[in-house]
């Protein structure tokens, strides 16, 4: 993939609209930082198990119960709402 195509692809995946100036800046940054990340390739990691948390974790469940959270206040935080609903652009 060409550099500019790759940046646009990541933009889409991230759902972030960049200006063309930002695309230019980001692609320079991107190249430099990815290059720096490549230091990890020096390591022999074949047999090493990855960890996704520093301490061993197990799934914890709790009783599912409703808590009252004042829906009016929650909806009031939304940029657009109607009654007690979030309002978004038409999707279909």
């Amino acid at each position: 993939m060409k550099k500019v195509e790759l940046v646009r692809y990541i933009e889409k995946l991230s759902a972030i609209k960049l200006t063309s100036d930002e695309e230019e800046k980001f692609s320079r940054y991107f190249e430099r930082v990815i290059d720096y990340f490549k230091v990890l390739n020096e390591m022999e990691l074949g047999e090493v198990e990855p960890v996704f948390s520093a301490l061993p974790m197990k799934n914890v469940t709790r009783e599912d119960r409703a808590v009252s959270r004042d829906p009016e206040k929650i909806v009031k935080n939304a940029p657009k709402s109607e009654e007690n609903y979030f309002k978004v652009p038409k999707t279909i």
Partner: protein
Amino acid sequence: MKLEDFSIFELSYLLKKRQIRAVEIVERYLSIIEEKNSKLNAFISVNERALEEAKRVDESISRGEAIPPYAGIPIAVKDNINIKGMETTCASEILKGYIATYDATAVRKLREKGFIFIGKTNMDEFAMGSSTEFSSFGPSRNPHDPERVAGGSSGGSAVAVASGMAQAALGSDTGGSIRLPASFCGVYGLKPTYGRVSRYGLVAYASSLDQIGPIARNVEDIAILLSVISGWDENDSTTSTMPVSDFFEYIFENRDRETYRIALPEEYWGEGLSIEVRKVLEEFLGFLKMNLFKIEKVSLPHTKYAIPSYYIIAMAEASSNLGRFDGVRYGRRVEGRTFREMIENTRGEFFGEEVKRRVLLGTFVLSAGYYEDYYLKAQKARTLIINDFKNIFREYDFVLAPTSPTLPFRIGEKIDDPLKMYLSDIYTVSPNLAGLPALNIPVGFSNGLPVGIQLIGNYFSENRMLKFAYFVEKEYSG
């Protein structure tokens, strides 16, 4: 003695003995905020009800009612931690106007013990940064030299504590965000063991690394705050069920002299460390040797891979966590022709530059075809970094390392070079990757600027770390 020279314990004692009123305490802190905040930019918002709450404490005392142990003590809270009824901005344009509808668990616990929240502090946007320059409210300034950075991302909290605008503060630490500003501002700052403190109500940056922790002017206050905020929480499945001791009581009652075994990893004391910082730290090591502590050089061989692993993991987790900012449920929105376009426009317009960089790069390292090359490798390197520390803690009580490679740098010095900024965290990211507790202890000055040392302990050894820090505070710093 000035009011802000007292500890939490002393102020609470004076309050109960009716030698001081809660209103006097809060008024004093508000007046320091009034005097200093316009210059230092520590606070994003100040709690307008703080004085009213203090009045209620005084009324309870005068009626002879029982009051919670720390009633009336003003605490500052980083602006990524929810306080019900107050704005939580994370120093981002995208969240401006968001009023928290619930208390974070750490906040609820402090509230139950009577603490008063004096305000919300400045930070790098979504805690992504090492200098508080990536705040949409402008940088916080270092109280020791306002032309220099406060460190980040909990810069506002460290400045508030160091300049006497709050008794103590909460910060959050993902890769050094409590310890680095504590070091730059000359105060204590603790990142607890992962899982010690609930993250419920903390706006997530990188969930496997984030911890809330205290920043304070003395070890006693750190111990009190840690005791209050620690413990299992049904709303955070990563909190530990380990019993929580009363850290304040522990350091108070265990004042016997111990002979600690201390490891100095050579990777942290090499050429990257500036001469000014090294000089102050070596003087401190001399003090430890005089006290006959066993101090030995060791190696943490995978340290070199900590920074790239950290940034890959943190950015990956951030790209997922920040997905919730979509212009639907909170904050601000830029309209678009479609639902999708609205989301892209909103995030493009209101996320700051550094946040965009990290979300974009985090998305990349998780994307098909690249996941194995970056994210998976980083998580494997993380295993090796954890094992390095486990080996050391078989033979040593603590690891000592610098908190920062340099003195606080000038505002603007690193802002245009993200990679240079990332390297400010070179000594602080490993404890986050390993989940270990780490504490900044201020140990001196160079050219009028504070220098801190980083004490890294084994899992859940905060009591012993604080005992060590208390000894240092009394025998060396004090």
